């Protein structure tokens, strides 16, 4: 993965400034390539801090790709290349002097399927602090983190049990707890509830509402209704056809996007009229 400054000179203005919000993450003129295949083109997006930003759009429009650009997970795939800048609190995370593990340490990620480590519940939460050389009281940290993830009450008597003994929804909350344990500033979530049943999904959504007080959350979701329910801001991406690069159509407060989208493509998408 190589980083090339975006070719079109000065970075264009972001699609929509989220009003007076403090901006946590910003994509500036991001292009992304898988090999020679351009998957994202000229993405300009500002993610407000301590808000939930949802990214929606048809399958293959590059939502997951964009999300992974935000914490350099994409570069774990071979032969990928990014152009443009991704700023985190003003710093370019793709700057050659930036350590990718440091970026991921500060910008956490939760995945589609719950993927706890085959370890005890405790060790799952303690994993991040351990690899990152946490020097404080691990027990206290684990408890506090599980409490934040609204899981403590359910697991406090079986911290030493395998994480696989938890239900799917609990596992996903454990994965969120695991991410919280390294105290990131941003949490990226790629369809975190799509493998869960409706009840577990609603619990995760409730949890996200709690977390948004302290964390910046970016969620990719297929489920438009979910984006409508949980997000503060919503970005709509699309592509002009399979294999064509994905681009950002519209970004705005979720109320605006879901009641009065500005772009007719957004309107058509969210009202279920796809081309």
């Amino acid at each position, binding site marked *: 993965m190589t980083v090339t400054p975006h070719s079109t000179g000065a970075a264009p203005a972001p699609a929509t400034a989220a009003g007076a919000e403090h901006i946590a993450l910003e994509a500036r003129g991001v292009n992304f390539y898988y090999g020679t295949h351009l998957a994202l083109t000229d993405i300009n997006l500002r993610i407000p801090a301590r808000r939930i930003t949802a990214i929606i759009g048809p399958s293959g429009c590059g939502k997951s790709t964009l999300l992974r650009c935000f914490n350099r997970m994409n570069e774990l795939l071979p032969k990928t290349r990014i152009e443009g800048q991704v700023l985190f609190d003003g710093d370019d995370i793709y700057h050659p002097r930036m350590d990718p593990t440091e970026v991921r340490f500060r910008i956490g990620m939760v995945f589609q399927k719950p993927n706890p480590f085959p370890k005890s519940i405790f060790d799952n939460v303690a994993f991040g602090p351990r690899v990152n050389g946490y020097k404080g009281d691990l027990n206290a940290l684990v408890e506090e983190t599980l409490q934040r993830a609204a899981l403590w009450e359910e697991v406090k008597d079986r911290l030493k049990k395998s994480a696989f003994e938890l239900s799917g929804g609990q596992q996903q909350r454990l994965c969120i707890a695991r991410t919280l344990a390294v105290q990131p500033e941003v949490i990226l979530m790629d369809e975190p509830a799509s493998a869960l049943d409706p009840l577990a999904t609603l619990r995760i959504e409730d949890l996200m509402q709690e977390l948004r007080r302290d964390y910046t959350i970016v969620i990719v979701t297929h489920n438009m209704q979910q984006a409508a329910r949980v997000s503060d801001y919503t970005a709509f991406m699309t592509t002009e056809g399979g294999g064509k690069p994905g681009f950002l159509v519209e970004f705005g407060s979720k109320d605006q996007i879901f009641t009065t989208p500005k772009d*007719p493509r957004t309107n058509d998408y969210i009202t279920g*009229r796809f081309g």
Partner: protein
Amino acid sequence: MTTSPGGSARQQHDFPVIRKGFAHELQGLQDDMLELGSMVEKAVSKSVDALKRQDLESSRRIIDDDRFINNKRYEIEEKCLRLLATQQPMARDLRIIVAVLHITVDLERQGDHAAGIAKIALRIGVEPLIKPLVDIPRMAVLALDMLHRSLDAFIKLDVAAAKAVVGADDEVDNLHNQIYRELLTYMLQDPRTINQATYLTWVAHNLERIADRSTNICERTIFAATGKMEEIGASKYF
């Protein structure tokens, strides 16, 4: 779906429409609303006509037929609720349904006003009119025109047309004032006319309300088209 000034009318023809079922139901909803509108238009027009011709039979029928309007309204409201509950409408689809929900109430009330006029006609009965009715039918024509144009604007989601309707409301108001003043003069001149004159002020009032409610429809049209709700005609409950 409606055609709209935006770019999405194109999409409906160039690309496969998904959610055919829903698109069809939404269309049906608007058709129902138009039907209700035309029922109301007929009721209003007939009620004034019956008043003018002192056709008590016709007036009675209008009052009686109001229940069809009521039923239609409930039918439409139920459809709206069903669509809201089952189709997760969003963006313009949602705004249209919410607008229909409101417009339906307005239309039904307009129907009530027509029935109100018919009731007044029954009260007046066959007692000779204190003056030949000219201005009231004129007012009715204006109000009906507004109603018609407002529904038209809604179906086309045509903001400009909707705004134009509001202008006509001023004319109706002027006429209303004029009629009111004239009837007051009658009353002052000849107290025996007071009863009938008061009845006729009610008729004028009913027509004024009908026109006013058409401006409500226009408000809802603008809202459905743009998502912005603004009171375009000042409310006048006096």
